[in-house]
């Protein structure tokens, strides 16, 4: 197997593209810089659902100030957003919409599951709720609490920043086989809605 000094194995490069490159001065620095910029300018999509959305707003407010991280620019258009903060309970009716928004977001994108309802369904273990948003979209950080206070959300965000900066997430899709598709289990003749893509 041919090996180019300072660059890496040719087969690996052919297979993985840039991912197969050995870290040298140039690539390492560029990657660090890009990761730095991604972590420093993480624009959240406005995706408030329930109680947690109020706490998300409070986090953007004067006392906690999400703007310190350059995150005050909540993007209304998913095309420009980097992180989706799923703030609140996700109902069966909302699930296709949520997935659609996620699909409309541009790579690289991250998901924070805020609150127990989004993470596990919380106390509402019933017919109406999706029991954990990670059944629909791949979640990177879970923020516990019902609802998580602004401090908890900030901690989740800072955790995500660190993960982005230390490059933990770049290969996520390759490792866990891509984002989750919607799995609709039919019980007792119930169905959830189909994903209707509208453009």
């Amino acid at each position: 197997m041919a090996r180019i000094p300072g660059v890496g194995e040719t087969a690996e490069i052919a297979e993985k593209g840039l991912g197969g490159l050995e870290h040298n001065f140039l690539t390492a620095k560029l990657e660090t810089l890009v990761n730095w910029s991604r972590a420093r300018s993480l624009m959240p999509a406005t995706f408030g659902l329930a109680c947690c959305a109020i706490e998300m707003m409070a986090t953007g407010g004067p006392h906690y100030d999400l703007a310190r991280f350059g995150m005050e620019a909540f993007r209304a258009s998913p095309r420009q957003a980097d992180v989706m903060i799923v703030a609140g309970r996700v109902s069966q009716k909302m699930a296709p919409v949520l997935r659609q928004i996620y699909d409309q977001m541009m790579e690289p994108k991250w998901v924070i599951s805020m609150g127990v309802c989004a993470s596990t369904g919380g106390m509402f273990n019933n017919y109406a709720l999706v029991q954990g948003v990670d059944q629909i979209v791949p979640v990177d950080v879970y923020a516990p609490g019902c609802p998580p206070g602004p401090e908890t959300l900030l901690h989740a965000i800072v955790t995500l920043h660190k993960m982005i900066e230390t490059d933990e997430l770049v290969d996520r899709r390759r490792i866990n086989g891509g984002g989750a598709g919607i799995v609709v289990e039919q019980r007792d003749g119930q169905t959830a809605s189909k994903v209707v893509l509208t453009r």
Partner: protein
Amino acid sequence: MIRDAVVQNTGISSLLPLAVDPLFVGGVGLEEVLIVLVKVAVAFVLLLISVMLIIWFERKLHADMTNRVGPNIAGPFGLFQTLADGLKLTFKEDLIPERGDRFVFRLAPYLTLIPAFLIFTVVPIGGDFDNADGTVTWFGNTTNLQLADPPIGILFVLAMSSMAVYGIMLAGWSSGSKYPLFGSVRATAQMVSYEAALGLSLVAVLIKSGSLSTHDIVAGQADGWNWNLWITGFIPFIVFLIATTAELNRPPFDLVEAEQEIVGGFHTEYSSLRFSLFFLGEYMNVITMSAVMVTLFFGGPDGPIPFFESVGWLWGILWFLVKIVAFCFTFVWFRATLPRFRYDQLMDLGWKLLIPLSLGWLLALAALDVARDKDWNRALVAVICFVVLLTMGALLNAAINAGKRKRLAGEGFD
């Protein structure tokens, strides 16, 4: 006639009708080309860097006005926040909507960005106009501190500021979805209504300055008491400021991208680098239009030179920057304080207030000018103007009210 005046003033031959820069007197050599290149680079880089700083400035200032801290993690005092934004957007996935017009969709961001650069080329950014003619001497070459000084400078500014709106309009149209279309339609209406007010208030300046060249306009305002702000009597400046805010789509006139109403307006479907171009273009326009306002009404680089008289042109640059920052502050202030106009209120303000006001003021100014030239009784003329304008205003008001009554009576919206 204006061109003749310019030629006379600057003392160069009419063989160089467009670039009336003393630099080119006596032929163009390598040195001159180099100086022009340096000026181009400086203007370009300066604008880019100042855009970075202005975005940071806006975010910090707005944070300050709302009891927050603002960006402070990216770099010292969050200074690199914009850099991070730009870099991140550059490395983000790009998308062209399936239903969109691919060519126009790609073209649109450049249509907003490039005019912003081009406007800046005709703005004098420094020079001592009080004691000299605003030129500086570098390496034995005398030159203006502006990239170009075409005799039609102001028309060029008007043309380019209209071009920027085309970018927004086409962006919304080419996205092929509904919210951008709303933004696009709004942008068109806004441009049509406010361009007229902008132009009319500008004519007042042109009457006083007697020239279309930005250099001459600034030269005519040397010494603080000659600023067009005073001698055109405030009204044109206020109209110009409002119309400019509308042209820039800044709050309270940001209907085009009103996030709460039409999601992102024209840039809803844009992501990645193309979005950052819009972002860049918007703030660049803020700077260039501030610069235009400074040039037209606030004497450009004019200002006191307390010491270091030998480098008076540097003081000019300083004053110029201070005035620009003051305007940027005003724009942020607007954003932090004012609610957004509604579409029809925007139209009302443009057509029913700003255009009649600037038109009437222009007529009064012109009448007074004629009175001065012909040695008429200027007080009498002023009174006549006042009475006529008041009557016209009352008539207009009556017409507007009649129209409103008619509409409310159920004739429906036209």
